[in-house]
């Protein structure tokens, strides 16, 4: 059974003069363990789609059902709690908290979940080792390169044991080497831990790694290709 079901998803922005149809009736399903890329030109609705998928934005029509729970039926407060327990986020600009160390950034979300200290310490160390930063636990974001910061962000996204990870242009600010390292790490986590990753991207290297590529044009799915 699909962990994510998207039914006739629509988003209309009401501007002062005109209405903008950012997403126009998308129907999609995502299975557990997918490594999928959402691609498309600028303004095609990738980020809007991802925001609705992650419960950061409400659709104008249609619904997103995650593990049988329709996000439309959740209040704003319930939605925050749902995100905390079910969805991992990786952002284009890393968005780490600069006053916290790599370890604290990763364990922050576990704090919000109320995990015990032992649980936090073990999981944070495991995750940072998995992303190749086992020796940078006490480093603050300012002391890490862009690639390293994004790896911390991936570890943070996984710390809450989410059902899936949404990554909005995760490699947009990275050089080739960092991009390659990051993608390799995410691929390993996907294959070995069966973690579902959904990216929005312009990056051909990400598209190349992805096993499913969904192309959006003008807010609609133009192609949905599953690689063999």
């Amino acid at each position: 059974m699909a962990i994510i079901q998207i039914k006739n998803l629509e988003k209309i922005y009401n501007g002062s003069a005109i209405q903008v149809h950012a997403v126009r009736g998308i129907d999609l399903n995502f299975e557990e363990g997918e490594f999928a890329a959402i691609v498309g030109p600028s303004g095609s609705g990738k980020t809007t789609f991802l925001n609705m998928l992650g419960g950061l934005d409400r659709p104008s029509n249609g619904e997103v059902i995650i593990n049988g729970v329709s996000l439309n039926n959740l209040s704003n407060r319930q939605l925050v709690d749902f995100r905390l327990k079910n969805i991992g986020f990786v952002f284009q600009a890393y968005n780490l908290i600069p006053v916290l160390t790599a370890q604290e950034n990763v364990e922050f979300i576990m704090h919000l979940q109320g995990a015990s200290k032992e649980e936090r310490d073990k999981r944070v160390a495991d995750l940072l080792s998995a992303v190749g930063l086992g020796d940078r636990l006490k480093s603050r974001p300012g002391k890490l390169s862009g690639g390293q910061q994004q790896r911390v962000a991936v570890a943070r996204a996984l710390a809450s044991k989410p059902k899936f990870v949404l990554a909005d242009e995760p490699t947009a600010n990275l050089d080739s080497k960092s991009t390659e390292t990051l993608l390799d790490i995410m691929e390993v986590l996907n294959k070995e831990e069966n973690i579902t990753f959904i990216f929005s991207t312009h990056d051909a290297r990400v598209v190349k790694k992805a096993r499913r590529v969904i192309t959006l044009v003008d807010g609609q799915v133009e192609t949905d290709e599953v690689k063999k």
Partner: protein
Amino acid sequence: MRNFKQIKLIKKISKIKSQIIEYSNKQIIKLTLKTKKMIWSIAWKNVWRNKARSGVVIVAFTLGIFGGLFTVASMVGWIQRRIDLAISNELSYIQIHQPNYKDNYELKYTINNYKSIEDSINKIPEVKGVTSRLKIFAMASTAGSATGVMVNGIDIEDEKLVTKVDDFIKDGTFFETETRNPIVIGEKLAKSLKLISYKLINEDKDQLIKLDFPQNILQELDSLTNINFRTEEDFEEAVYSLIGEKKAKRYIYALKKQAIKFKLRRKIVIQFQDANGDLAYSAFKLAGVYKSDNQMFDGLNIFVNKNDLRKIAAVPENKVHEMAILLDNGESLNKIANQVKSIANNYEVETWEELSPEIASLNKMMDFYLIFFMIIILLALGFGIVNTMLMVVLERIKELGMLMAIGMNKTRVFMMIMLETIMLCLVGTGFGMLISYSIITWTGNTGIDLSRFFGEGFEAMGYSAEFFPEISTFDFIQVTILVIITGILAAIGPARKALKLNPAEAVSSE
């Protein structure tokens, strides 16, 4: 009807149910505490994120708190000094009069058999001393001038127990003389009666040098040595012409204080209407000159021996006009006042607060001033905090969006911003209070003497130019509470702004 087994099962289920509820409640409390600890920690770290900006806010708070507390402490100290001097010199803690006496200060309104009242009051353990006075409004005149005065006929030893006039003797003695009809007057009155002159002698110069008076100024004034000036104006004119206006303005107070000389043993004639309505007068000889911190008191009150005054005023032996009582301290003032009332039940017994409500009200006004000052200061600082925290929120839109996106609820975001603001305020307040406490304690011990700058002005109003700043622990607590309230109020706007953020928009903002 349920059988025994069913009832047992229901009881067991309900026990398990209550255990589960108890467990989940504990878990919720545990989770809340853990999260709170984390929010406290992150808020504290955020305070130090932009050290320069936080530093400016902290310095502003430190200076604001210090300014407010020190000003109030100085005013409290100044007023306390006024109250202490009023009690120890002018009013004492309790006074007794014939009920009509204070209407017109007529000689006929006396306290009869005052000795027995005095003896009973002296038996009260908290009473330090009692003195009985004859008090008469009179005209005092010398060869050079005349003025209205209040003649206090006193018992020397009793008076020493109750007031400190003997401590304020500037020249001569407090009745330690064999002279007939000795009189002690204030410096201000001595000036009015032209019983002074100004003469800078070599001993005065030595004394001034000991007080760090600049030697070069004394050299410039060398030509004045041993010259006798009959009036204050003449002396001032000579000093101004020798050292110039700028320097003279700075040093004239110290010079006059040192150069003033009193014409001891000169005759002062006291003239008034006696108890029989006849004109009475007698000549007294100047035995001593006192100077308190209250020029109004010094200009009005003269002291003579009670028996000397009784003879000319025709007031019988067992009668006086006023009894003044000094206590160990003012803690049980009202209780003792009631005891005195029961002893002197035919007379008017008043505490110093009733005798001088304007001085008593100063004390109460200080509490109001502290709140008033601090509210103005904190209002200004509060706007600064609002500005700073708004900048903080605007700078961190992306980060706040991320926090909300990954699952930090609005209550926690609100709490984090509130805590950050309150912590910032409290750090500044902590420094402000530390500095205030240190400086108030230090100056409270050493005192602040402004006599060189405003001595005459203060004394003319009845206030001492030297005061000892003081402030109570309660005032510190009061200020802390006000700061926390300011922090909370100032944080609400920025925190609400953070709450209005849409996580999707905030995360992708530039």
